[in-house]
């Protein structure tokens, strides 16, 4: 060994037990953007390989859910969706809710289900949950396409008055916040599940139950009219105003309040940031506990 101390600047990387709390290494994620694109492609291509219907499954699922919801909640339960025709109302809620829940549940298993890859090779771990968010956005776009087909049917044959207006400009904004909440919540959950699997169980039925306190199968107006004492509970759910805003942006009908929207937006930012901090801590040693 030489006596001359090595100058730390000459090293391109130093592996140490701990990193700084806010060192999120987003630059590295950007460097691996090709990998991100390929993961998205893999998700989409591999999911329905060796199926006859292929991507048609993307639309069958929301279509059937809509039919079931229509009978159970509208016909049997008597939840009114006026002035929007019930099928459109449900399909609209289901498509955005599905986007959230698939982002959330799929990213929440990031560490556990990819342990095989993670254990063998290093790449920025954030690439995987991000790829989930992107591949789901494509599925969401397909389902949104179906929604517009159904709307077109109602416009042509049922005289449903539909207008394309400035409310459409809100759509990408809502989807972005929704994606953020799903992604942030998902990576927090995935970080927790690496050591204690209890959270996996919790998340699975938690998301199902969460839908019922989110105005997916009813509108906020319905709650305000019929059960005003529960209104604050539902509004406290940051997803509620997002669903309402989404319905407003597509159908021109829904309660949009800037205040609640800002609340959702702030919730999203906090979740994403906290998620990335926790995730970057856990990703360093999770292979030992997963």
């Amino acid at each position, binding site marked *: 060994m030489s006596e001359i101390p090595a100058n730390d600047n000459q*090293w391109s990387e130093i*592996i*140490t037990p701990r990193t700084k709390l806010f060192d999120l290494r987003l630059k590295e994620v950007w460097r691996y953007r090709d990998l991100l694109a390929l993961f998205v492609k893999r998700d989409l291509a591999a999911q329905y390989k060796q199926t006859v219907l292929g991507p048609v499954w993307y639309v069958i699922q929301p279509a059937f859910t809509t039919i079931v919801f229509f009978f159970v909640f509208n016909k049997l339960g008597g939840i009114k969706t006026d002035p929007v025709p019930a099928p459109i109302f449900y399909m609209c809620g289901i498509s955005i809710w599905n986007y959230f829940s698939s982002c959330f549940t799929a990213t929440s298993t990031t560490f556990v289900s990819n342990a095989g*890859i*993670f254990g063998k*090779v290093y790449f920025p771990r954030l690439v995987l949950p991000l790829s989930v968010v992107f591949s789901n956005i494509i599925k969401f776009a397909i389902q949104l396409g179906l929604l517009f087909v159904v709307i077109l049917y109602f416009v042509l044959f049922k005289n449903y008055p539909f207008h394309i207006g400035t409310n459409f400009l809100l759509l990408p904004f809502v989807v972005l916040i929704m994606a953020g909440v799903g992604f942030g919540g998902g990576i927090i959950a995935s970080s927790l599940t690496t050591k*204690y699997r209890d959270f996996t169980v919790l998340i699975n039925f938690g998301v199902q139950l969460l839908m019922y306190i989110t105005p997916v199968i009813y509108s906020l107006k319905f709650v305000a009219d019929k059960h005003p004492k529960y209104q604050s509970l539902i509004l406290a759910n940051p997803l509620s105003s997002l669903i309402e805003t989404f319905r407003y942006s597509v159908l021109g009908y829904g309660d949009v309040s800037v205040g609640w929207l800002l609340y959702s937006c702030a919730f999203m930012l906090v979740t994403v940031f906290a998620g990335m901090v926790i995730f970057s801590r856990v990703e360093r040693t999770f*292979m*030992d506990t997963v």
Partner: protein
Amino acid sequence: MSDLAIQVENISKQYRLGQVGRKSIAHDFNRWWHTIRGKEDPYLKIGQENDRTTKGSSEYVWALQDINFDVNHGEVLGIIGRNGAGKSTMLKILSKVTSPTKGQIKIKGRIASLLEVGTGFHPDLSGRDNIYLNGAILGMTKKEITSKFDEMVDFAGVERYIDTPVKRYSSGMYVRLAFAVAAHLEPEILIVDEVLAVGDAEFQKKCLGKMKDVSEKQGRTILFVSHNMDAVLNLTNRCVVLANGKVTYIGKTASAVERYLTLTSRSCSYTNNNPGSKNVYFAEITASELGYIFNEPVIFEINIHSNQHVKNVALGIGIHNLFNESIANTIIENALTLVPGDNRFTISIPSHNLVPGDYKGAFALATEKTWEFFDTVLEEPSFKLFNDKDDSMLLSRWNTNFGYHTLPKVNIIPK
């Protein structure tokens, strides 16, 4: 100092044994409680040396303990050790799959690790898609992959199948394709774990050749872990020997490999208490525990158990090296006459043409003429031949790198 590619400083890695459950959550809380009070992690103190064969009193073990070594730029460094010695943990830390508990590693240059071939291969995707996916996982950009795509397909020799899902591939083709991607990575530092244990002999040779090429012609640094000592000897110049999470030796590959092999299999006596249906067998063969000195006889004590009177028994004696290659043999006809019960002999082999090193014995008993074997003992017992006591003879400083034999007495006739 400027020519170092990797500098490993005091790397330690602790693991907790046993199940994750209620007890581990209690430890987690305790650890967190210590951290917020600014105290040291209490469980770091109680770790034990990692010897999987003995029962330990602590749940915490050190898979690696104070590992220090340097890797020079352009060097091929081998890491060898028994199962559980800490090789894979070391590679995982180097390739950032997990982080160390203590210490730091400094790295100069882009690093790519090949702890497994075909990481992230999706069985339903075609060979083409998987090349892109796997390449990107290993750190290549799409552009880099495209520019090398034809080369990779050619290397793997699977052109015909390139648009077929890889689940239809034979396992050999799968591995070929996977290795082809990895072999065309161009990092400054490549970390390779026993990936060569797959594929046919021809392909293994191709892989070794490719790695040699990469290090020699392109000046890349390679860290190579393998149990295949031939590959280690062939590829590397220097080796780190790990045992129970500690470095026991760093140095020239040949000496490191010998040290590793003596670590794994060293018993200077052979005993057989369960002969089965054999009527005549070696009950005990013992070599000197201290070893022998060059140019002095190698002596074995043997005990042959016989159930009957046997005359004219032939004795075969061989010497093997640590790679289990036979390097010298002899057969002594009409060697022994055996009586019922124990028959003890001392065998003395002059060693003046065997160079110092580690060896193993080989013994056989057979009938005269018909050559029916009574019993054979291979690669046991081990023995060591040391340098001459005063080290005065040039020959005694030879080692097995020069071959195993010295020539018998050579006559020089003046004219």
